[in-house]
């Protein structure tokens, strides 16, 4: 049943992506409603999976890389609903669906995905808060990356006078720039809370702290230098993409490290 929930949600995101591509190609306007419905359905299936998995493992389902990736994609979708409705960036769904789809496919291809959940005693409030909040922060960084890609695409359209139907559907660059910066800030605040929770959790390995700092510091530097060095929106968008790629790599290393322990 648990696997059925996960496969269904993955198919929902694939359908959302496929429909958006079709809608853009066929010049059908307002694809956002379908995007929204499919994303919502996928989100519900994800919740179903996480609910069953947390029952099976007896704690927040973050015991291996497979669970971490599913939780991460759930965080991305959660933030998509918050950000999408706040900034009316309807096409964010078009860009979010393939990312979430990809993360979930990778998760299901992992060897850990085929291993039955192992019941573990809860590590306690602080360690679980640390892990969960940190992953939601990664979700915010992922969405900042998505908005950054949208900004770069739209900016290129404007510079090159290429006003195709894709240009019509993308939001204004000013709105995308605000979305990138706010998402990075939200992710940074959440990650800070996650790291603080990690300290409260105690017995945090030095390698974990070093890797967490490896994500926290670049984002902190970007946010500070945006003000001190007056970074352009274009540069911030590029940095959002690069920083998330690095963060994803760090997350992989971190999960393998925890798995090893």
């Amino acid at each position, binding site marked *: 049943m648990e696997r059925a929930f996960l496969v269904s949600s993955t198919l929902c995101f694939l359908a959302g992506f496929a429909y958006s591509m079709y809608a853009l190609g066929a*010049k*059908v*306007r*307002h694809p956002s409603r379908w995007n929204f419905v499919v994303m919502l359905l996928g989100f519900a299936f994800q919740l179903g999976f996480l609910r069953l998995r947390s029952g099976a493992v007896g704690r927040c389902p973050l015991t291996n890389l497979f669970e971490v990736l599913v939780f991460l994609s759930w965080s991305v979708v959660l933030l998509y609903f918050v950000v999408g409705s706040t900034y009316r960036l309807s096409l964010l769904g078009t860009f979010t669906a393939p990312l979430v789809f990809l993360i979930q496919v990778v998760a299901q291809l992992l060897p850990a995905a085929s291993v039955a959940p192992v019941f573990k005693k809860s590590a306690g409030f602080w360690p679980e808060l640390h892990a969960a909040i940190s992953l939601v922060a990664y979700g915010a960084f992922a969405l900042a990356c998505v908005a950054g890609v949208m900004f770069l695409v*739209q900016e290129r359209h*404007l*510079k090159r*006078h290429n*006003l195709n*139907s894709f*240009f*019509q559907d*993308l*939001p*204004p*660059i*000013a*709105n995308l*720039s605000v979305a990138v910066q706010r998402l990075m800030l939200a992710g940074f605040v959440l990650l800070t809370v996650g790291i603080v929770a990690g300290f409260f959790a105690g017995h945090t390995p030095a390698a974990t702290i070093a890797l967490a700092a490896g994500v926290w510091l670049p984002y902190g530097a970007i946010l500070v230098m945006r003000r001190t060095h*007056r*970074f*352009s*929106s*274009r540069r911030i968008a590029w940095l959002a993409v690069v920083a998330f790629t690095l963060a994803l790599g760090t997350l992989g290393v971190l999960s393998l490290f925890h798995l090893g322990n």
Partner: protein
Amino acid sequence: MEVLCLGLSHKTAHVETRERFAIGDAHLGEFSSLLAQAPGVREAVVVSTCNRVEYYVAAEDAAAAHRTVSDFITEKCGHAPVAPTFIGLKSAEGIRHLFRVVSGIESMVLGETEILGQVKKAYLAAQTAGATSRTLNKLFQRAFNVAKEVRTKTSITRGAVSVGSAAVELAEKIFGKLDACNVMVLGAGETAEMTAKALQSRGAKAIFVSNRTHERAVALAEMLGGRAVHFDEWEREFDAMDILIGSTGAPHAVVTSAKISPLMTRRQDRPLFCIDLAVPRDIEATVNDIEGVYLYDIDALQGIAEQSMSVRRNELARCEEMIERHVAEFSQWLAVPHHGFGGTAGMHPEGAK
């Protein structure tokens, strides 16, 4: 029950003729009500815009209703509605025409959306005056649904089809809302004035006008409700500018990369939208290479307008297909005798007689 449409439009009549038959908004309900009480007419909606005057009626006998409507127009306007200026369309043809009108297909600018609001107003006036009943209520409601479907499922209303609207569309894709944007107009050309007006109508905060002949700058600034700036001082205002329109008659570029580059560093990541409407051009093409600057010249803007119009024209067949489906459905509904007439007493025009 039959539906009849008798009217003229920009396609059949010059403005001198159209204005002779035009009806003020305040009289639309009254005209509809009077026509609905005329012999042989059951229901009526009168639509009058700057590009068309059309009488839609529901009647048992379309030929007899045609004569009644003609007499009514002659009596009210003092001129007889004659062909080919006036065109009479009955049953499916009349229904199709209304669906095409509300979808913007019959408009002077293909796909414009203002007509839908105008027809809605006319229908509401007629309905309030008790001139509509079952047939026209159903017909107009269906027409509004058709318009919505055509607008949302095709690209018929998409894109900007004039230089001014292309500039507005681009500005909105750069800044989002324009209510915090300041516009600087260099020169006092007519296209620049229209573009500035278009930006102003979408909420642009302030307009500055600078021209070699300061008096012309003052005159244009007054017209736009903006402020005139001496030509040798416009660069001082640069920091506050978001949109720069070049429209001078200068034989060389007035705005160069060398001038803009250092000014851009002071802007704290605020983009600059440059619109060059002048020939020879006012703004050096390399300005577009500066980060945060988006330059469009007159050819680029006209290209956008033409591209949008071409997209709209390519959508015509899809729109017509959708409309045909609705025409067939409505005609079928109309052909069923008991549907044709017999609205609620309160809405029945006969009841008002």
